[in-house]
C-alpha cells in the first residue's frame, strides 16, 4: 500500500506513464490508475523521463494499436513463470525486506519535485511486489515510513500520508485480485485517522488472502518494535500468563510486530542509494539476514537490479555461526 505510485498524477497534460502517446486517462477503461486530486506536482516530467516502467500486470498492457487489454482475474499469485536464468527456486529467499532509499535525491538529480520522487518510488514497489509473487517470495517488507520520518518537512509528511491513503483506496481491488495479504506494522495510533481506518479495512479485507504477504512498515522502527514487545510481555507477566524466567528468544520473537507473518525474519535485506546502514528498520529480525546494498536510487531500481540482489543472495554461504 505504501508508495504505490499513482502515475496518472502526471496525466493532467496527457502524459502517459506507460506509453509515449498521450492517451487520456478517461479513455482507458481498465487503466489501473486514478488521478490523485490532492497531489501537487510542481515540475513537469518529460515524456521520456523516469516514467518508463514496464507495465506491472503481465495480463494487462496494451495492444500494438495502443488499446488497453482487459485485465484478466488472477486466481493465484503463485501462477507461474520460470525464474530468470541463474536463479534457483530452492534458494529463493522466503522473506525479502527493502529500505526504499533515494526517492528525494533521485528527484533532485532529475530536476523533479519531491512528490514525483516518492511517486516514482511507489511504482517500483508495485513492480517488486509483483516479481516477488511471481517468483515465490512469500513475504515482502517495505520500510515505508520510519518513526524518525516525522522530523521531515511538514509538506513532505502530509504528502506521504495523503499518498498512502490514495494508494490504499486505489489499489484495494487489485490487491484482492492478486490475493495479496496486507499487514501494516508500526505504531498506527500516530497516523491520521482516515489512514488508520483504511489500514484496518485493508488488513481485514485481505486477512484470508494466501498469496504474497506484504508487510508495510508505517511509523515503525526496530527499537519501537522491541520496546512494544517488552511492554507486551511485561503485561503478560503481570497477568500471570507466564513468569519472567519463561521469557526466551522464541517467546520474544512472537511478540514482535513481524510475528503476524509466517516467515517473520527477512532472509534478504536490500537497501538502495548506496547508503550502508540499517536506519532503525528491523533490528532483532535482521540477526541472520543477508544484506545487499545497491548503489542505485530507489526509483531506478529495476527488475535487473532485483535479480542481481537475488543472485547475490543465492551465492552466499549461510553458516549461522556454526560449521559449513
Amino acid at each position, binding site marked *: 500500500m505504501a508508495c504505490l505510485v499513482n502515475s496518472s498524477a502526471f496525466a493532467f497534460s496527457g502524459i502517459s506513464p506507460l506509453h509515449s502517446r498521450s492517451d487520456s486517462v478517461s479513455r482507458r477503461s481498465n487503466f489501473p490508475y486514478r488521478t490523485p486530486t490532492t497531489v501537487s506536482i510542481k515540475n513537469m516530467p518529460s515524456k521520456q523521463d523516469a516514467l518508463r516502467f514496464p507495465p506491472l500486470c503481465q495480463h494487462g498492457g496494451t495492444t500494438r494499436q495502443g488499446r488497453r487489454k482487459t485485465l484478466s482475474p488472477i486466481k493465484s499469485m503463485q501462477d507461474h513463470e520460470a525464474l530468470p536464468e541463474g536463479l534457483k527456486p530452492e534458494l529463493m529467499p522466503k522473506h525479502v525486506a527493502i529500505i526504499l532509499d533515494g526517492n528525494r535525491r533521485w528527484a533532485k538529480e532529475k530536476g523533479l519535485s519531491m512528490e514525483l520522487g516518492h511517486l516514482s518510488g511507489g511504482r517500483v514497489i508495485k513492480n517488486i511486489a509483483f516479481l516477488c509473487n511471481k517468483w515465490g517470495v512469500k513475504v515482502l517488507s517495505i520500510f515505508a515510513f520510519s518513526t*524518525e520520518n516525522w*522530523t521531515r518537512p511538514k509538506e513532505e509528511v502530509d504528502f506521504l500520508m495523503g499518498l498512502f491513503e490514495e494508494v490504499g483506496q486505489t489499489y484495494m481491488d487489485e490487491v484482492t485480485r492478486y490475493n495479496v495479504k496486507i499487514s501494516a506494522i508500526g505504531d498506527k495510533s500516530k497516523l491520521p485517522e482516515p489512514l488508520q481506518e483504511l489500514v484496518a479495512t485493508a488488513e481485514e479485507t485481505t486477512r484470508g488472502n494466501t498469496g504474497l504477504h506484504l508487510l508495510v512498515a508505517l511509523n515503525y*522502527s*526496530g*527499537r519501537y518494535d*522491541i*520496546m512494544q*514487545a*517488552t*511492554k507486551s*510481555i*511485561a*503485561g503478560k*507477566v*503481570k497477568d500471570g500468563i507466564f513468569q*519472567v*524466567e519463561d*521469557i*526466551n*528468544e522464541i517467546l*520474544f520473537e512472537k511478540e514482535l510486530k513481524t510475528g503476524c507473518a509466517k516467515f517473520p525474519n527477512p532472509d534478504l535485506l536490500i537497501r538502495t542509494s548506496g*547508503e*550502508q*546502514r*540499517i*536506519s*532503525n528498520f528491523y*533490528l*532483532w529480525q*535482521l*540477526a*541472520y*539476514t*543477508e*544484506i*545487499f*546494498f545497491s548503489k542505485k536510487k530507489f526509483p531506478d531500481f529495476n527488475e535487473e537490479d532485483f535479480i542481481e540482489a537475488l543472485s547475490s543472495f543465492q551465492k*552466499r554461504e549461510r553458516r*549461522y*555461526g*556454526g*560449521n559449513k
Partner: protein
Amino acid sequence: MESKSDSYAGSLVASLLSRMRRFLFHVLSTGPIPNHIAFILDGNRRYAKKQKLKEGMGHRAGFLALMSLMKYCYELGVKYVTIYAFSIDNFKRQPEEVQGLMDLMLEKIEGLLKEESIVNQYGVRVYFIGNLKLLNAPVRDAAAKAMKATANNDKSILLICVAYTSTDEIVHAAQEAIEEKWGETQESSKASGAQNSDICQEKHKGHRTIKLADIERHIYMGLAPDPDILVRTSGESRLSNFLLWQTSTCLLYSPKALWPEIGLRHIVWAVLNFQRVHPYLEKRRKQV
C-alpha cells in the same frame, strides 16, 4: 654483526612506518573520528585453509591482526573498540574447535595482563560482554581477573563479546527491566499499605512504565555508546546476531579481506566513509 645491522634496519623501518602512520592519522583527524568501532572477526578458518595452516592456526593469526588493529584504532583516537570474539552460536561448532578457542582465549587473556601488552601500553580498560555463565570456569575467572586488573585504565576501552548474541542480550535486558519494574511496584504497594484492588492497579501501571532507558540500563553493551562503524571482514554482509540494538544508525563496512588480512588501509577507508556520512547522521540525531 649482520644480525645487529639487520635488526637496526628493521627497527628503523618500523620507526619510519610508525611516523608515516601517525602523520596519516593526523591528517584524518582534521575530520571527525569515530568514537566507537566494532569488528566481526570473520574469516580465520578460511585464512588457515588458504594459507595451508594447521587447524586452529587461523585463529592465532587472527589474534595478531587484532593486536595491530587495536593499536591503529587507539593511535587514531578511537575510544571504544568492540570485538565479536565468540558467539553463543559458535558453541555449535566442532567440540575440538570450541575447546581450541577457549584455550586460545585463556592464553591471550593472560597475555593481555602482562606489563608489555598493548592494554597497558595504551591504557585500555577491558570488559567482557555476554552471557558469561556459558563459559567454562577457567575462562570466566580469567575474564573477571582481566576486568579487575584493568579497572583503573582510563584512556580507552576494549569490549570483548564472548558467549554473546544480540537476541540473548535483548531478552536478558527485557527480563531485568521487567523484574526491576515488578520489584518497584511491589515495594511501593507494601510501603503504602494499599488494599488488594489498589495493588492490582499499581501492578497494572507498573507494566506500562517500562521505558527505553530501562532497556538501555540493563543491556550488556550499555557501558559504551552505540558504534559509529561496524566492520565485518571476509566480504560477508550480515550482522550474525551482533549488536542488533546498537547498530541502528551505524555505518556498515564489509571488506573482502579475511580477518587475519585486515590492515591499516581498511581502517582508513572505513573512517573516510564515516566522515562522508557523519554530517548527515549528526543532523538526523539532533532532529530525533
